[in-house]
């Protein structure tokens, strides 16, 4: 092969394969991409929630993009507990200040980062959440403290539209 010179025919083969590969790719991609979230699913991207009826120490769960979102109005004890934890003690270090801009309100995806179950409120070794599926314990800031989950529960994009309304997404 090494002594063989590149000929016109080799060029034609290579060019044919290249064009063929592009053609196959262009045909296969729509077949794959059709499985991704469609326009109607993406259209449900944001939800507004009225939180005026939520008292301190209560959690409400709302559905956003088919997933539960926990909105917890935390007590002063819970805030103090969450803010007193040293970052070195955390598996996934995040400060409570970053997770809850308004310390009274914790808004997070109620989805265990292990395999997607919904953790139970006010349970577990850290007074936060406990996932019944595979035993992950979360603290009052929704941070993973013990168990197989790799990261803290996710904080979605949200904002206070006014004092009583949270817009998620």
């Amino acid at each position, binding site marked *: 092969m090494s002594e063989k010179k590149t000929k016109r025919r080799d060029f034609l083969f290579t060019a044919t394969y290249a064009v063929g590969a592009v053609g196959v790719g262009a045909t296969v991609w729509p077949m794959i991409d059709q499985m*991704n979230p469609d326009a109607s699913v993406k259209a449900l991207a944001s939800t507004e929630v009225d939180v005026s009826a939520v008292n301190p120490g209560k959690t409400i769960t709302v559905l956003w*993009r088919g997933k539960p979102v926990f909105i917890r109005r935390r007590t002063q004890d819970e805030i103090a507990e969450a803010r007193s934890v040293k970052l070195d003690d955390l598996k996934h270090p995040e400060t409570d200040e970053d997770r809850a801009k308004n310390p009274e309100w914790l808004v997070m995806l109620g989805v265990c980062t292990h*395999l*997607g179950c919904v953790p139970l409120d006010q349970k577990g070794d850290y007074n936060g959440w406990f996932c019944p599926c595979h035993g992950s314990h979360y603290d009052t800031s929704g941070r993973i403290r013990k168990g197989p989950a790799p990261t803290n529960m996710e904080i979605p994009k949200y904002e206070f539209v006014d004092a009583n309304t949270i817009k998620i997404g």
Partner: protein
Amino acid sequence: MSGHEYIPKSKVGKWFNDRLPLLTLANHLTDYPTPKNLNYWWTFGGILTFCLITQIVTGLVLAMHYIAHADMAFDSVEHIMRDVNYGWLIRYIHANGASMFFLAVYIHIFRSLFYGSYKSPREIIWIIGIIIYLLMMAAAFMGYVLPWGQMSFWGATVITNLFSAIPLVGEGIVTWLWGGYSVDNPTLTRFFTLHYLIPFLILGLVVLHIWALHVPGNNNPVGIDIKKPSKDTVPFHPYIVIKDGFALLMFMIVFAFFVFYTPNILGHADNYIEADPLVTPAHIVPEWYLLPFYAILRSVPDKLLGVVAMLSAILILAALPWLDTSKVRSAVFRPLYRQFYWILVADVLILGYVGAMPAEGLYLLIARVATAYYFLHFLVILPVLGLKEKTVPVPLSITEPILGGSPNLATAKNKESLNN
């Protein structure tokens, strides 16, 4: 394949067979020389074919009444149970049929492990079998999602989330699998489509599995190569047909017991509650046939490594023909392997048990030890045992131990020269 030319007796038969040799194939299948010492553990191939056909036929009928939509799936299953003529029977056969299918496939796999059926020259049969087994698990999992009960929904959530353990692209893959940001209607419709497709893929692989089997012929309890046809073989029909038929009848009695007397014992009560994305059931447990692998997943404290361990536990089986270094096939002549075999059986049963228990305390410890032993068996014990073990002399033929009397020095010498 059988090496002899077949000529149909009738003129029409000959005319047809010259154009499409279907009758030659039928003749090959009836005359196919089979070892005459096959025991009842060899009847599960036929039983599994029966299971596959049962699932395809009942599934086809259920699909005429089932509606694959998140708002209607649960109700349509209840409609099948209450309103459709014999719907309860057909659905119970299909649901319990899945369990019976796995029961039979586990016996079939452990038969191969005991008698060394995966060894040369039958590696391809074995690997096709492992692919069939993987497809069976995929079909069973997706089928369990279709009734859209609580276990359906949360089982689907947990299993699809396994892919999120893949670094970088994991989350994207999960969203792609779901067709949304959670398990929802798009997930249900694609699972229904795939659940309908997979059995036919399995059917195609079964044809290849049997084709590959008919090249070297059946292994047998003695595990030696035999001449075909010879006094060591009998024709498939009627000898094996009758034996398989009898075993199938016995199997159907067990099957019918579950369908008519305890149709829900293998399922989970939570699946009679409609799927609710806001509430996870207190204990998520997969179907019994997946429990050993579930135990392996949970025994590893790291998410990615847990998934890797679980997949490896299945895929390691494909490498078995090369991990087992022993030249002797049947465990009958391998006194040490025989003991390790039964330890492995116990190990898998223990994994299945702890898989159904909460992953904490003593259960977790047992799961970890059993997981470690599972891999130890395949990666260390089998390769070393093949080199170290002193095996018992194997007979020259199936009939020799019966007709040839006690083994003497001459036959033993003869054997060694044959083995080398």
